[in-house]
């Protein structure tokens, strides 16, 4: 079953004070996310990630296009009962305590009173805020607020969770904790749609990723494919800079540090390189396939446009 289906979703903003012009923040996005999937929505700053999430949450309205969530129109209030949302750099009513805030949100999501009390206690423990008591949120650190943010997103036990840059602005410990929390949601079988520009987080958590740039979808890929695909290139390190002249033509890239040489070859040329190095009497240190990483994919996808821009 599809958890999310986005169809030709487009958002244009009017810019300029005197002469209004329409500038697209999101251009005809088409995307599907399966139930149970953890889906990473990647893109550099200003790519249109937040715009997409705001559209899906009904905070702004699309210029054109539509979406379904859990098989129903995305603006259907029935759908909203079953989804959770963590905004980018969230801010909460700072005159409330964490339990008060969660109680308010749970009521808005229609969680019955007895369940509310139990879930709030349980959830505060789970996000590591069991001992905050009645301290007002204005006294919370950024990391604590982010954990409150995650708690409010799942207080009503939603099936689909949308997170906008959940790790940005956190220190390494905070990032690790948030990562663990997302992993536990994933283990619980939730569908997770999260935007990020931190690729390692996406690589660690996601089943699939989409890359968006300048409001355009650039590609969708399965994260495991990046790991298992055969390496196109191999990195070879050896001692003996004098051997370089004999093999230079084979190398795609080369770095020399003293007598140590680090070069990359197309994997097809690997045997010839190793043979020549042996003939030259170089001492081999390591031979390592260069994995095609998510980063390469991301960079390739976001650079495509720059080439286009040049030809324009």
């Amino acid at each position, binding site marked *: 079953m599809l958890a999310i289906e986005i169809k030709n979703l487009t958002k244009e903003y009017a810019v300029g004070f005197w002469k209004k012009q329409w500038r697209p923040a999101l251009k005809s996005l088409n995307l599907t996310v399966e139930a149970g999937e953890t889906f990473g929505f990647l893109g550099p700053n200003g790519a249109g990630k937040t715009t997409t999430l*705001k559209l899906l*949450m*009904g*905070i*702004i*309205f699309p210029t054109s296009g539509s979406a379904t969530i859990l098989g129903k129109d995305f603006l259907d*209030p*029935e759908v*909203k*009962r079953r*989804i*959770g*949302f963590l*905004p980018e750099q*969230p*801010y*909460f*009513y700072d*005159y*409330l305590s964490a339990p008060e805030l969660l109680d*308010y*949100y749970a*009521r*808005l*999501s*229609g969680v019955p009173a007895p369940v509310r009390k139990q879930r709030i206690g349980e959830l505060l423990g789970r996000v590591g805020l069991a001992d905050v008591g009645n301290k007002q949120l204005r006294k919370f650190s950024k990391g604590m607020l982010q954990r409150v943010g995650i708690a*409010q997103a799942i207080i*009503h036990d939603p099936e689909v969770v*949308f997170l906008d840059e959940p790790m940005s602005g956190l220190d390494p410990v905070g990032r690790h904790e948030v990562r663990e929390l997302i992993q536990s949601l994933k283990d619980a079988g939730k569908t997770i749609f999260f935007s990020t520009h931190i690729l390692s987080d996406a690589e660690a958590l996601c089943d699939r990723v989409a890359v968006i740039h300048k409001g355009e979808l650039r590609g969708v890929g399965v994260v495991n494919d990046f790991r298992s695909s055969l390496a196109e290139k191999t990195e070879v390190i050896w001692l003996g800079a004098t051997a370089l002249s004999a093999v230079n033509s084979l190398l795609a890239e080369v770095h020399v540090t003293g007598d140590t040489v680090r070069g990359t070859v197309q994997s097809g040329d690997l045997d010839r390189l190793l043979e020549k190095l042996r003939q030259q009497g170089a001492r081999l240190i390591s031979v390592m396939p260069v994995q095609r990483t998510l980063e390469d994919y991301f960079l390739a996808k976001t650079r495509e446009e720059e080439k286009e821009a040049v030809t324009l």
Partner: protein
Amino acid sequence: MTSRLSAITWNTFREAVRDRVLYNLVLFVLLLVASAPLFSQISIGLEKLMLVNVGLSSISLFGVIIAIFVGIGLVSKEIEKKTLYTILSRPVRRWEFIVGKYLGLLLTLVVNTALMTVGFYLALLIFINGLKRADAMLLVAVYFIVLQFMMMVAITLLFSTFSTPIFSAIFAFALYVIGTFGEDLKNFAAMSHGATKWLAMGASYIMPNFASLNVIAQAAHEQNVGSGLIFSNTVYALLYSLAVTVAAVMIFERRNLK
């Protein structure tokens, strides 16, 4: 629906209380106590007139100030601080948010007014030595003041859905002043001709009219307020507030949040 509405109403009330809005009560009491020495300086009979005027006028003024300064931020602050993101991603209808905010601020004002009214009656007891049957009429004056609050909250809430707090405050205050001298606009319409007449007429219907809701002078002179006026004022305030709130909902329903 009702549980979401009451949650929003209650949270709005709680915010006002925690923002120390009710501290104005202290000011109110101080004002009454501070003006007490004045009463003994003037002749008997006039002192009650003074007390009723000072008391009711400040109940009205304090409430209007709260209505404006809390009202202008009701929606715009939640947009500015993006707290609405986590509200609208829940099964909350946009109209529920507006109506909940409206009721929350009105509740704040009703509680505030009720406490002030108690203080006011206590002052009457202490300074004027006892209450009379006619003093029940003062409650009608207070009721009319609350009707004014109903209208002012709707007005500030409307501005809050599309304007910045500073402009909202200016507009709302201007409307309050115009509304308080509203009869003048109608008189002007009656006297003028042609297009001016129609413009003035139209304006006098759109603008709030607080003149007939102000019976402080009558109350001070222990004059009766007819049940006809109570009825017509109630209907007027309800309809006016409803129309303005509907306008606020219509604007907010279409609004793309920042």
